[in-house]
């Protein structure tokens, strides 16, 4: 039996100071969002120290891509951030195109903008929805799942799959937009999405319980966020207006009028507000992009990168051989190395690619936006309550697929 504690030992005032307690959270835990694990050292409910652990979804993306051709890597990129796979497709295709020196067609650029912004919206919806489930507000999750399904129908129409899209190709896309697709996108972007954002906004933004539960929870200063390498909504919530769509405009982002929302305190509430506003800004971008969408081909006109058409393959021996070599050996990409970054939903998604010529990559390194965010979690929650860890973790939106790769 343990020794009885003398609560009057501290000069007559009760001293209930106990040993710090170590608890393990995850890797299978309802609130750890897939496969994360923490070891928390607690003093009562206060977090003294937190050691994150991950790798439970390490799938060897880099090793697999080193054994694949350039085009075969596209499906692997879907499964990095599986909440917004189209953005990974775009990021990867842009990196390879930079290496090849390809200038894609104007139409393709606009299409990539539209699909990226649609993905950004559904990504933020998952983030906010699941974050609120962790805080006990289940309704928002259901509200946000409705427009998500609508967007999934659009994506399925675009590329045949709801989630693992593999839409982009080097120099273009898998296929052009289906007839009438942009009208249906507009209908969703004007109808169900703003309606659901307004509903959730009405339920949460001025909700006293929500505010007390999130304001001041998991804060970070701009200086610390930069030192830790934060990007995306988490950095912008801390007041740093870094957004590659504005700062290094890629595709055609410089042709649109949109704002970058920033927060002040960098806490969970600010991250929520930044994401809500980004969804509205994304809707603005989609509206403008569809209005400006030019006609013409979606693929570049270059037989070195684009598959010959089916009619040619079936009717012409050269096209058939070309097609065969293309599939078996892959696109020929010149030797060199590039780093190409895009603004994904969680922050800067970078691809560092080394090619030594030939049909497949020599090395692909993904710079996942979640990686530094997850590293910063102990910094965010130290000294706070254990329940705040759950709120904070949901709000930084860790996606294990890209964290572990």
């Amino acid at each position, binding site marked *: 039996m343990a020794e009885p504690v003398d609560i009057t030992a501290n000069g007559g005032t009760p001293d209930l100071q106990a040993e710090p307690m170590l608890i393990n959270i995850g890797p299978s835990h309802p609130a750890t969002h897939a496969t994360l694990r923490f070891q928390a050292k607690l003093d009562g409910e206060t977090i003294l120290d937190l050691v994150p652990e991950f790798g439970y979804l390490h799938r060897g993306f880099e090793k697999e891509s080193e054994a694949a051709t350039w085009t075969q890597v596209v499906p692997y990129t879907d499964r990095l951030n599986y909440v917004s796979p189209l953005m990974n497709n775009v990021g990867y295709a842009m990196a390879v195109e930079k290496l090849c020196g390809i200038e894609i067609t104007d139409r393709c650029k606009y299409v990539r903008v539209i699909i990226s912004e649609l993905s950004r919206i559904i990504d933020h919806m998952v983030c906010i929805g699941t974050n609120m489930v962790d805080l006990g507000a289940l309704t928002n999750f259901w509200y946000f*799942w409705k427009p998500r399904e609508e967007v999934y129908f659009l994506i399925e129409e675009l590329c045949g799959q709801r989630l693992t899209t593999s839409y982009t190709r080097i120099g273009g896309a898998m296929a052009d937009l289906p007839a009438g697709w942009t009208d249906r996108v507009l209908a969703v972007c004007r109808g169900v999405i703003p309606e659901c954002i307004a509903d959730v906004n009405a339920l949460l933004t001025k909700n006293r319980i929500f505010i007390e539960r999130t304001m001041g929870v998991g804060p970070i200063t701009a200086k610390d966020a930069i030192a830790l390498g934060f990007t995306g909504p988490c950095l912008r919530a801390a007041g740093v207006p870094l957004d590659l769509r504005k700062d290094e405009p890629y595709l055609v982002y410089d042709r649109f009028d949109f704002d970058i929302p920033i927060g002040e305190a960098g806490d969970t509430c600010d991250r929520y507000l930044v994401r809500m506003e980004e969804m509205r800004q994304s809707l603005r971008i989609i509206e403008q992009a569809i209005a400006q969408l030019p006609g013409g081909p979606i693929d570049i006109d270059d037989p070195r990168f684009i598959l010959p058409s089916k009619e040619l393959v079936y009717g012409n021996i050269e096209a058939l051989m070309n097609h065969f070599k293309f599939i078996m050996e892959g696109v020929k990409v010149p030797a060199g190395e590039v780093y190409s970054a895009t603004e994904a939903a969680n922050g800067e998604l970078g691809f560092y690619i080394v090619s030594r010529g030939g049909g497949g990559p020599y090395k692909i390194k993904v710079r996942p936006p979640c990686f530094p965010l997850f590293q910063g979690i102990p910094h965010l929650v130290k000294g706070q309550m254990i329940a705040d860890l759950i709120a904070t973790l949901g709000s930084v939106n860790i996606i294990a697929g890209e964290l572990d790769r």
Partner: protein
Amino acid sequence: MAVRIEKDGAPGYALTTLESLIAWGRKYSLYPFTFATACCGIEVMGAFGTHYDLSRFGAEVVRFSPRQADVLLVAGTINYKMAPVLKRIYDQMLEPKWVISMGACACSGGFYNNYTVLQGIDKIVPVDVYIPGCPPNPEGIIDAVVRIQKIIETGAPRAADRWPIK
């Protein structure tokens, strides 16, 4: 089960065995444990979501404690770091229990054939229903749940009864 209803409004009666009564009750109150690791987890959320609504089949009460669950829904890639965790969770579930393996990765490793990915969870736990696809649509999950219900209803042997496969 035999049911007789009297025409004149007198109380009828039902004849059944205790087993089939229990199976009938069990069938409509499945508590799934979603072991969602990867992309499939998003489609699991879709299946529980408003559009597909798995609760129509009596399986919407997700339990994150293995002690309270009957069906282990393994959704996503399992690698060698995660595999012991999965095995342990399976062992902690109470009998009777069923396992659904969702998606190409859980069924066979999918297109990840490398140093880290377990080539199918049936190497470590018995699997009752496999759902193909990468990822499967939410309809696939609904179909798997209905299949589990059929196994329960008919009293068909479970994969655990044939385990381990020689």
